[in-house]
Structure formats: C-alpha cells, structure tokens
C-alpha cells in the first residue's frame, strides 16, 4: 500500500464520523470518538505495512517524502490524536456547558461529532507535514493544521477565555502564515526551485547569500511560531490556558512535533551549504538561548498548571532548537541531530500527553486548572497523583525516565558541536525545570486542598475516569519507565 493512502484513510475516517452523526441517530456520541480511536489504531498498524514507491523518480514523490523520519512523525501524530480523542470523551460535560449553543430539541451532546472529526482532519494534516518535501506541500499541510486549530481553540464559544485564546491564535497564526509565505517566496526567488532537493542544490552553489538569508529570517520567525520558540512564542501561555484541554494537548504535542520536522526539512539545505551553515547555526543558537531563558524563567512564577505546561513547552522547544543548531558538526548530514530531535519529541509526546490527561480529569472534576486544584491530590486519588509525579519527573529529566534520555542526547550533541554557551544556558534551564516541576509534586503530596467552602476537596468526582483514558494513562506511564530503561528501542525505529 502506498504511504499516502494513510492520510486519505484518516480524512475518510473524519468524514465517516460526521456522516454517522448526521444520519445514524447515535444515542451516545462517545461512540463516535470510539470509532475514531479504533480507526486510528488500524491506521497506526498500517503504518508498518506501507510499500516503497514503485517509481521514486516521478513528480509526485518530489512533494512527498517517505523516509524513516516521516513515518516516525506520522506515528507520533496518530498516537497523539488517539489520546486526544480519548481525552475528548471525558470532556463532554465541559463542552455541554461552554460549547456551541444547543437548541432545545437537539441532542444534548450535539456539537461533539465536530470535536471528534476536526482532530482527525488535523491528524491528516500533521501526517502530511511529516512527509512534506516541497514548498507547496509544506505550505498546504501547515495551513490545513493551522486553520483547523483556529476552530478548535475557539471551540468553547460561550467560554470567555477560549474565545479570547481563539482570537489571539487566529491573529498571530495568520501573521505567522504571512511571514512564512513571504519567506517561501523569497526562498524561491533566491534559488529558483520549490522542491527542497532543488533548493539544496541551488544553495550549495550560491555566491550571494543575502536573498537566502532574508528568506531564512522570515521562515524562521514563522516556524518558531509553530514550534513555540522565540522570537514568536508569546502566544503559547495565553492560548494553552484558554483552549479546551484536549486541544491544548494537541497543540503542545502535535503542532510542535510536526512543526519541528518541517523546520528540520527547511533548515537542511541551509545547514548543508558551506557559505550559509555558520550563520544559520549562530541564529539557531541565539534562538535556543533566548527560548530556554524565557520558557524556564517565566515558568518559575506560574500558578496555573496549564500555563505552566505552556512555558514548559517553550523550554522544551529551546532544547530542540539547540539540538538542531548542533547539526553541522556531523558534516551537515543532519542525521544524528534529526534522530536526537525525533527522540526528544517522542519523549515529550509521551510525557506531555500523560500530564494533559491527568490535568483534564483534575480540572474537569475540580473546575479549575490552577495549582490549588492539585493540592492534596495524592490523598484524593493516589493513582492520578502517581501518574502526574511520573510525568513531571520525566519532564524535568530525572534519570531512568524517558525525558532524561531526551535531554541527555541533546546535551551530548551540544558538546560534540562545542556550543558551550547555549549548553550552559540549557543546563541552568534544566535545573530551573526541577524547581517548577517539583513544586507541583510538592503540592500534590504535601499540601491539602481547600475548596471554596473551606473544606478539603473530596475524591468523589476524581474516580470517574473513562476506561479508555485509564488504559491510555497506564500505557503512557509504562512507556515513560520502559523507554527510560531501553531508549534504544525508539532509536531503532529511526534507522
């Protein structure tokens, strides 16, 4: 089966969800999410059954890459969407309260089918991004993802913060689109090619680097928006806090990982060019330092857990940009840095999805996502507290969790490339991370929560966890520890 069938199947799956909702008279709409999850699990296994292109020279494969990296990121996109759909199932009460207004006679869960179908379309977009190899396919897949996110972020139309986050994401997202398109136009102007191999050939022989660097400035600013790195990361805390929690998880993991593979593909021609690579590395190193400083130090002051995860996502982007900046020491082949970035993103995906699953359950039960909602969680629900402990430990990079290996490989790269200053900042940033991640753990285990009435918050609502999310949480927790012991099994997928 050709690889591009996978995206088509995912789009059809989204359409099937909408069709069943329209004609099927579904009583409990959670079965729609179930349909989506089952379909995605099938697609995930089909990922290993794809065939190599029969005619790799033909025009189509200029638009669509089928390397190991592409499949790896398609896998991340699919697994993320599965977890997000499971999260959406538990999110129905919030949707009913704040979602699109429901007419009196309509189904009480109406509006949920779209909340399932849109992440599926988005998943197809993320999978296309993983394979995008040509400026046209990069642009179109990126915009498929961005425009779908506009809808999803503002989905809780009657909730003030969600709508506000939607407007902010809309304006800044459209701004980054404008920057990206202008940068792509100049990249075309500098090289005369739209496919990345053609661009690579043209940049390798170019004598005047100025147009390409001009294009690079715009492209970097736009892609930094997608992956959440400075100079365009300021939207992240606001939008993460305002968006519905499943959408925040999708933004944090899906958008960031797909954004990074596009960024890597776009940077490869620059990093391979003799004339440009030194300058590009300097810019990337500055970006990494600024992102690490901003993400880690702003996170120290946060009391809202969703916002905290937003700043932590910025700081993770800083580590990833640092890995990218250390590319040319390997002959510009970018292979080892690409592996590092892919591994780090896989570890971040597993860790962050677990954190968002716990967060969405706790915030739905306790009607809030600030630090206070997590106080005394260990007494109310030892299960959730333990999972959050694991997730935070992995985010901070405690040894024998998967997050440790992610940071370890990044530091190793930076040492090989002698990027001493960014490395120092990264180490300080990682140390700051220990403070704010462990403050959350401290709140869960050593403090007691008091509700609005002054009494300790009970455990009654916390035990209502859907079977799907429960299984997903246990599997993610096992993955954090399991891959912490055997990181090589992820790396093997990339060869």
């Amino acid at each position, binding site marked *: 089966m050709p690889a591009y069938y996978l995206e088509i199947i995912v789009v059809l799956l989204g359409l099937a969800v909408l069709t069943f909702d329209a004609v099927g008279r579904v009583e409990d709409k959670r079965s729609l999410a179930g349909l989506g999850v089952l379909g995605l699990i099938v697609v995930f296994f089909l990922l290993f059954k794809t065939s190599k292109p029969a005619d790799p020279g033909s025009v189509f494969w200029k638009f669509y890459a089928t390397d190991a990296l592409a499949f790896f990121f398609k896998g991340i996109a699919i697994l993320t969407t599965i977890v997000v759909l499971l999260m959406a199932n538990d999110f129905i009460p919030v949707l009913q309260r704040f979602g699109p207004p429901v007419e009196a006679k309509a189904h009480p869960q109406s509006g949920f089918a779209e909340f399932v179908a849109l992440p599926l379309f988005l998943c197809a977009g993320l999978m296309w991004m993983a394979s995008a190899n040509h*400026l*046209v396919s990069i*642009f*179109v897949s990126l*915009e498929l993802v961005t*425009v779908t996110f*506009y*809808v999803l972020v*503002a989905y809780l*139309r*009657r909730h*003030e*913060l969600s*709508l*506000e*986050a*939607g*407007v*902010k994401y*809309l*304006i800044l997202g*459209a*701004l980054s*689109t*404008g*920057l990206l*398109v*202008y940068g*792509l*136009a*100049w990249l*075309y*102007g500098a090289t*005369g090619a*739209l496919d990345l191999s053609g661009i690579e050939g043209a940049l390798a022989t170019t004598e005047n680097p100025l147009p390409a660097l001009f294009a690079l400035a715009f492209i970097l600013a736009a892609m930094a928006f997608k992956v959440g790195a400075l100079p365009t990361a300021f939207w992240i*805390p*606001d939008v993460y*806090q*305002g968006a519905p929690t499943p959408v925040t998880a999708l933004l944090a993991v899906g958008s960031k990982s797909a954004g990074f593979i596009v960024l890597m593909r776009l940077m490869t021609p620059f990093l391979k060019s003799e004339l440009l690579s030194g300058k590009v590395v300097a810019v990337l190193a500055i970006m990494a330092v600024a992102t690490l400083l901003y993400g880690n130090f*702003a996170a120290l*002051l946060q009391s809202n857990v969703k916002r905290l995860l937003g700043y932590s996502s910025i700081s993770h982007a800083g580590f990833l940009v640092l890995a990218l900046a250390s590319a040319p020491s390997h002959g510009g082949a970018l292979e080892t840095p690409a592996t590092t970035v892919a591994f780090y993103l896989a570890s971040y995906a597993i860790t962050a999805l677990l954190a968002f699953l716990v967060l969405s359950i706790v915030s739905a039960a306790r009607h809030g996502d600030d630090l206070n909602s997590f106080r005394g969680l260990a007494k109310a629900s030892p299960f959730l507290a333990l999972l959050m402990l694991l997730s935070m430990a992995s985010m901070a990079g405690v040894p024998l969790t998967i997050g440790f290996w992610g940071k370890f490989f990044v530091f190793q790269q930076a040492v090989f490339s002698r990027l001493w200053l960014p490395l120092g900042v990264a180490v300080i940033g990682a140390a700051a991370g220990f403070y704010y991640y462990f403050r959350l753990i401290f709140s869960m285990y050593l403090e007691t929560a008091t509700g609005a009435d002054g009494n300790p918050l009970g455990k009654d609502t916390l035990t209502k966890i859907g079977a799907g999310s429960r299984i997903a949480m246990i599997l993610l927790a096992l993955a954090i520890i399991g891959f912490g012991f055997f990181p090589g099994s992820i790396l093997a997928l990339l060869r």
Partner: protein
Amino acid sequence: MNQGIEPYLLVSGILFAIGFAGVVLRRNIIVIFMCLEMMLSAANLTLVAFSRHYATPLSTPDYQAHVLLFFIITVAAAEVAVGLAIIVALFRTRRSIDSDSVSALKF
C-alpha cells in the same frame, strides 16, 4: 517591458511592510485581518515577479510558482472564512471588535 525585477520586489516589499505595520499598530480586528491579507498579497506579487525572472528562454514564466500562488489564494480564503466566524462570535459576547478588549489572559 524589460525593466528588471527590482521595482516589483520593491512594491511587494512596501505592501508587506504596510501590512505588517497595520497588524502591529491597528486596534480594530477587522482592519488587522485586512492587513494580514495584504501581507499574503505581497508574497503573491513576489512569487509572480520571481516566476517571470526565472522564465525559460521561450519566455514562459516558471509555472511552479504560480501553483504555489493559487494555493496561497485558496488558503487565504479558507482562513478568512474561519477567522470572520471567530470575530463574529467575539463580537456577540463582547459587543466590541477592539483588540484591547481581548486581555483577560495575562501573565
């Protein structure tokens, strides 16, 4: 005819700068949105100029760039469709489309 590519790039650069300045400076969200569309148009003009610049000896422009341009126009239309819906929803709740009114989420 053959006055070179520079005037076109200059005009598109000015168009882009005006659009960018509008996004940063204006407070009305509809106007901001118009400025964003202007930035996309600037990119389109750049693409057309470069595609003429890379014309083949038979003087057909490089049609690859035109394909990207049509995709940009299509995507811009999709973006407007979603964007205006969000702005309408904002107006219904806030009775204002001033960007200063969206300030509940703060540090």
